[in-house]
């Protein structure tokens, strides 16, 4: 007897369409599709609800014109900076957060992912999925407010301790003995450590909650490095570590957040001093590579053992070779450096050999650091140059 073969019946084209239609209409996030010219071809009910439009008001309209995107100050975002434009031009998915202007003029914070539809290597349209993140924004705002308040409350007593200890040392209240001076300096060192810890924890909380504020300004990197070296020179001197700066570029100015970049560089240099034994050296190099300005912090320190290298930027991680020698670290410094560098659109990496030393590289684009309402992620290939 001939065996019979059974197969499921093929869905008809009409059934497939009905299935796709039901799927499209039941998605909880807004979905918009466009043709290759950016004209809106479809929008689902969730999208209409978020934006407050009727379908007839939005179909066939040019996407960037009909759906106005604004930044956190209410300024329209340029066409070239819109995710849909970037997705079309780059041919890759883009995820960002921004605000959309609703039909009634109100703005709504949205998390967007735009993907180009590619056929035969040519974009034939785009799909945008967007979600109303008003509640997340409100939670972020409250978190940010709490962080600010906590920072203020923790530091106020610390400021008084430090100010009065300094005043006593500086003789504002009369002469003191050398033993008293030594004791007060111990108070100051401890207060400074506490202060650094508060700063680090607050910055980490800000990064993790996405509530860090990036305010780009024209920053002279050479000046900032010189200032940090001046601040850390006494620490290096105490260990007889030579601390120097070599500038081989005229492109010392970048547009970035001055406080964040200072925190990053300061962490890298103080780390290098900390993990370099006596009579060693820490050399900071400032140079250019294409459209990037690079900073290299090179030390003759303990180095990072090969097995530890993959984890060096993770939270609370400390390599075994330094735990044995230096007990005061928290394992938060490089985690913070990595997080802050991402926030300003830079890149950080290192080369290291145990017992020979480490070079940390920080690369910053000289152009504008983008400022978005919150952290934005662009899914595209990294073009940051690596050291040769």
């Amino acid at each position, binding site marked *: 007897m001939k065996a019979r073969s059974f197969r499921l019946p093929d869905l008809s084209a009409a059934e497939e369409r009905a299935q796709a239609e039901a799927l499209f209409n039941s998605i909880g996030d807004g979905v918009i599709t466009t043709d290759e010219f950016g004209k809106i071809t479809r929008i689902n009910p969730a999208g209409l609800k978020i934006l407050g439009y009727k379908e007839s008001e939005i179909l066939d309209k040019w996407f960037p014109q009909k759906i106005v995107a604004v930044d956190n100050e209410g300024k329209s975002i340029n066409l070239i900076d819109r995710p849909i434009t970037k997705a079309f031009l780059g041919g890759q998915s883009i995820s960002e957060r921004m605000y959309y202007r609703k039909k009634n003029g109100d703005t709504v914070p949205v998390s967007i992912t735009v993907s180009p539809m590619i056929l035969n290597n040519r974009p034939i349209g785009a799909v945008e999925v967007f979600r109303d993140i008003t509640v997340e924004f409100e939670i972020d705002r409250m978190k940010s407010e709490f962080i600010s308040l906590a920072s*203020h409350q923790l530091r106020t007593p610390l400021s008084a301790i430090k100010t009065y200890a300094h005043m006593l040392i500086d003789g504002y209240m009369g002469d003191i003995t050398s033993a008293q001076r030594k004791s007060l300096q111990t108070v100051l060192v401890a207060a400074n450590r506490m202060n650094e810890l508060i700063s680090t924890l607050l910055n980490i909380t800000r990064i993790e909650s996405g509530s860090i504020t990036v305010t780009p300004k024209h920053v002279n990197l050479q000046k900032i490095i010189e200032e940090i070296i001046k601040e850390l020179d006494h620490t290096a001197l105490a260990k007889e570590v030579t601390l120097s700066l070599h500038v081989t570029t005229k492109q010392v100015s970048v547009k970035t957040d001055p406080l964040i970049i200072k925190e990053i560089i300061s962490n890298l240099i103080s780390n290098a001093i900390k993990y370099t034994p006596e009579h060693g050296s820490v050399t900071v190099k400032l140079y250019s590579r294409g459209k990037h300005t690079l900073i290299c912090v090179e030390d003759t320190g303990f180095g990072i053992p090969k097995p530890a290298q993959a984890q060096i930027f993770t939270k609370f991680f400390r390599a075994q070779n330094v735990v044995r020698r230096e007990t005061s670290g928290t394992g938060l410094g490089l985690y913070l450096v990595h997080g802050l560098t991402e926030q300003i659109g830079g890149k950080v990496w290192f080369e290291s050999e145990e017992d020979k030393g480490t070079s940390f590289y920080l690369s910053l684009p000289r152009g504008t650091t983008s400022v978005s309402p919150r952290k934005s992620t662009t899914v595209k290939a990294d073009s940051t140059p690596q050291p040769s």
Partner: protein
Amino acid sequence: MANILIVEDDTDLNAAYKVILENEKHTVKSAFNGQEALDLLKDFEPDLILLDLLMPIMGGLEFLQNYELQEKHPKVKVLIFTNMENSPEVNEAYKLGAHRCIIKSWTAPQNLARVIADALEEKPATV
């Protein structure tokens, strides 16, 4: 030397800054919130105001709005002296005309005296 107004709600810090700045031969007045500062400014013309942001009754930002720094007192330098590092409040203070922001817990008395001297000499704010 200059006329300086300290606006700081923490009495210990307010007293300390007064000692430091008087030691530099400045004429110093103290207020403990924004409202007290506005009252004091009716009879006192400062060259520089050292302003805390988070204070009871009237905070630093509200003080700047009421004082109309940019519109009515463009020559007065306002240094924000706060512990709210890298916060939206600091950005707002800059928008309202503040000259520079200093983090209290990072600033030793000698540095405070230097920063104030620089501001009074119109030196551009260094980061």
